[in-house]
């Protein structure tokens, strides 16, 4: 088996009775940014701490460049971690914080100065050398943490929810910068976050975790357009779910009926092997639904319903639609509605293209 740059093989870790990480396998290509994504408590930070060597896994092996490194103490792994709290040393200046790892490695004074100056330039911290961490803004602290981790030229850069202490605007700006920086110096990054939008925008690959297990590994597009199961479809982007009985199907497409509605959908999971009479679960994203106030001509992929609530969200308007003869409450995002005042209790029809009906599971 050809090994990737960084391999996690069957990593497991328990804390008492709680299984934090359960047989986790992840392969990470050199120079890519891989996100460990999942709800809080899914084991992503534990996985990161296992990578950094702070926690010893109960079983499994980590390989870096083909070499097992699980037994190595944290200070010999060459994996720099940017902590969620940044963990800047409060008793050191910005310069001393960034130079710390180089001094530990007994690098010559001149080279330290050169490398620290260069990295500070790179992350835009010039002129702040003599400040102490508490004299910096949140965004500046974040850059210091990043510079401190990068200056030692780690094999892998680990980022633990690095943006969670920044305000919303700054968060978007910094994540763009991180992505730019990663491409510039072509470094391998393992990035932990619980924010799916952040993960989608920044990653080459996403490892979506739940309850210590890997649920799906793939590109952001894979996870968005071909979710492996209900959890993925719900966690990434959010979905409406419908279930019905298969009436006709091929490898890639499938017709099914939900009550007296007929649907044609796309089978996103090739190994489902559906046959007639199976019960399937399909996901429909709120932004893929079209709203009509007159009955469309086609009867396939059309729901009849009543708008029961609305929320104006700026770029889009969110509607909650009660489907006629169904218990389902659909969430619909519409971008071209100017007013919501007259929508309440209005009768409507929802339609969706067959390619946007993702058949994800056999029930």
């Amino acid at each position, binding site marked *: 088996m050809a090994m990737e740059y960084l391999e996690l093989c069957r990593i497991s870790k328990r804390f008492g009775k709680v299984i934090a990480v359960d047989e986790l396998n992840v392969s990470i290509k050199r120079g890519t940014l891989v996100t460990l994504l999942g709800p809080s408590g899914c084991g992503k930070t534990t996985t990161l701490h296992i990578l950094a060597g702070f926690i010893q896994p109960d079983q499994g092996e980590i390989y870096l460049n083909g070499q097992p490194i699980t037994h190595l103490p*944290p*200070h010999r792994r060459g994996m720099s971690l940017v902590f969620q709290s940044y963990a800047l040393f409060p008793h050191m200046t910005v310069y001393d914080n960034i130079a710390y790892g180089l001094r530990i490695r007994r690098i010559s004074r001149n080279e330290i100065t050169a490398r620290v100056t260069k990295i500070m330039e790179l992350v835009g911290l010039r002129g702040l050398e003599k400040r102490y961490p508490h004299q910096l803004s949140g965004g500046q602290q974040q850059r210091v943490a990043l510079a401190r*981790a990068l200056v030692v030229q780690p094999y892998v850069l680990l980022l633990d929810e690095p943006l969670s202490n920044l305000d919303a605007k700054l968060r978007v700006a910094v994540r763009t910068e991180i992505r730019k920086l990663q491409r510039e110096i072509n470094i391998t990054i393992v990035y932990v976050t619980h924010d799916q939008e952040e993960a989608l925008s920044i990653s080459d690959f996403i490892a979506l975790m739940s309850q210590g297990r890997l649920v799906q590994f793939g590109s952001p597009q894979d996870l968005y357009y071909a979710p492996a199961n209900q959890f993925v479809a719900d966690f990434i982007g959010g979905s409406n779910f419908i279930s019905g009985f298969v009436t006709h199907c091929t490898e890639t497409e499938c017709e099914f009926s939900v009550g007296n509605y007929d649907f044609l959908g796309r089978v996103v999971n090739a190994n489902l092997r559906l046959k007639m009479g199976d019960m399937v679960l399909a996901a429909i994203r709120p932004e893929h639904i079209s709203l009509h106030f007159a009955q469309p001509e086609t009867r396939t992929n059309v729901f009849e319903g009543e708008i029961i609530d609305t929320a104006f969200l700026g770029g889009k308007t969110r509607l909650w639609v009660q489907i006629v003869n169904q218990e389902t409450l659909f969430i619909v995002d519409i971008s071209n509605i100017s007013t919501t005042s007259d929508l309440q209790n209005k009768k409507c029809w929802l339609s969706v293209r067959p390619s946007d009906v993702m058949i994800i599971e056999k029930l």
Partner: protein
Amino acid sequence: MNGSGASRGSLRQPESEKRYGGAYQAPLFPLRRYFRLFDSSCIITLLLVLFISVFLLYPVIKVFLYPSMAQYINAITRPLALRALRNSLFITVISTISSVLVGFLYAYAMNYTKIPGKTFFHIISVLPLLSPPFVVALAWILLFGPRGLITYSLLRVRWNIFGWQGLWLVQTLAFFPYAYLVIDNVLSSIDPTLEYAAVNLGGTGKQTFLTITVPLALPGILNAALLNAIYILADFGNPIVIAGSWPVLPTTIYGLISGHYDVHSAASLSTMLLLPSIIFYIISRSALGSKSYVTVTGRSSGLSKKLVSPTTTVMLFVFCSLVAFIIIVVYGVLLVGAFTETWGLKWALTLRHWSALSGTALQSLINSLICAIIAGFGAALLGLMGAQFIHKRFGHIMRFWDFTFVLPAAIPGIFLGIGYLLAFNAPPIVLSGTLFILILALLVWNIPIAYQTCVAAIKQIGDEIPYAAISLGASSVRAFLSTVAPLLRGPFAYGFVMGFLRAITNLSIVIFLIGPGRNVATVHIMNLIQYAEIPRAVVLTVALFGVAIIVAVLAQIVLGIPLFGRGKARRGS
């Protein structure tokens, strides 16, 4: 707040103003910041200021002004005084270093290892805080004195513990718990992610310890050192029992009064004792207070403390065990001594000595108990009221009174004792010879503990919680009683128990203030030791220790607050 509160009230609808208007006019607690003339809080403030002036500042100034300049110079330049001063500085330096070192290692083991029996080690370390200052010295005499178990019975050597080496050992053991408690607090608040960050950047355990842990803990360690230096400089109980003919300032001052009744010289030397204490105290409060790096970060990283290597763990475990063993021996020896026929000669068990616990000895124990309970309660109450009504009320003048509420923590017991002796022996206020003077002195001396914990708690509670109660319709008094008061129960209880313990175990203040038939246990024990009545001294010490523990435990049960656990609970907030 009164002004804006009234205007806010007027903005409200008439109906609600009628219902809640009263509550908005005069809230109790904002008075801590805003002052309105001639309301009840003003009167309380003035009473507190008056009390502190009469019972703290007046005695202190009395000592300062008692000797003339010539008498100062004469007293300080005497060879005996110079020797005592030199000895005091010497023992303060070495005992401070050793006690802080032991305290640091002890605290380090508690925070950076997974050694078994941490609760046990913690409780053992707290024991010296519960007992009179000379307990360790007394046990040391039983072990290493002229008739000591080890020196006389086992080794049959002529060497004994008396002298500065003995004092050094005893003070190290007696005062390391103070350093341990302070440093434990500091180490436990260091964010472990900082140490993980250092390791992650390539630091070894040793490098991390030297570049991260020690620098971060340094302000706390220095603070512990300064506080211990104050205690050790003022320590009277241990040197009087064990230093023998090796004089230090406190014993010399006592000798000047009890031997020669040379109050002028005693007052002069007491001032010499006070000045360094005040300086240490001010440094520890101002300079180090602002340099603390211990920050509370919002989100926890989920990482627990980075543990040290197995070898270091074993070494630290052995070290803690050794310290704990010595402490157990100290208290064990006292217990055994209380039930032994003749220490060093005849080891038969007996209850004979317990008959000593009658008459004047019993009376002194009862006096101790009464004084300590009243003084502890009073100190807690005044500390609480001071925190409510004095702390940072209005500008520089109140800043001074704020300082007077913490000042007693820097005053050596000897100094305060002499101050009370000089101040209340003659009109206008004559209190000498009564229990009242003992109670007042001990009360004033213990105000800072309750004051500081209550100030911290009130800051933590903030103004919003009582305002929330008021906005829900509670009257100001009701809001205070239902929100702030329950939250101050912990600090109050802590102030009471600590004040009680310090009062019942105090020797240095009360030794100057006891009158005929108004003896207290610690002084009685010291007299017994000086008359070489060791078994009776031991019995009374064990009894006093027992009473102290019972009251401390009872108080914790009654108040429902664990006061001697590790970490935040200890400060009761």
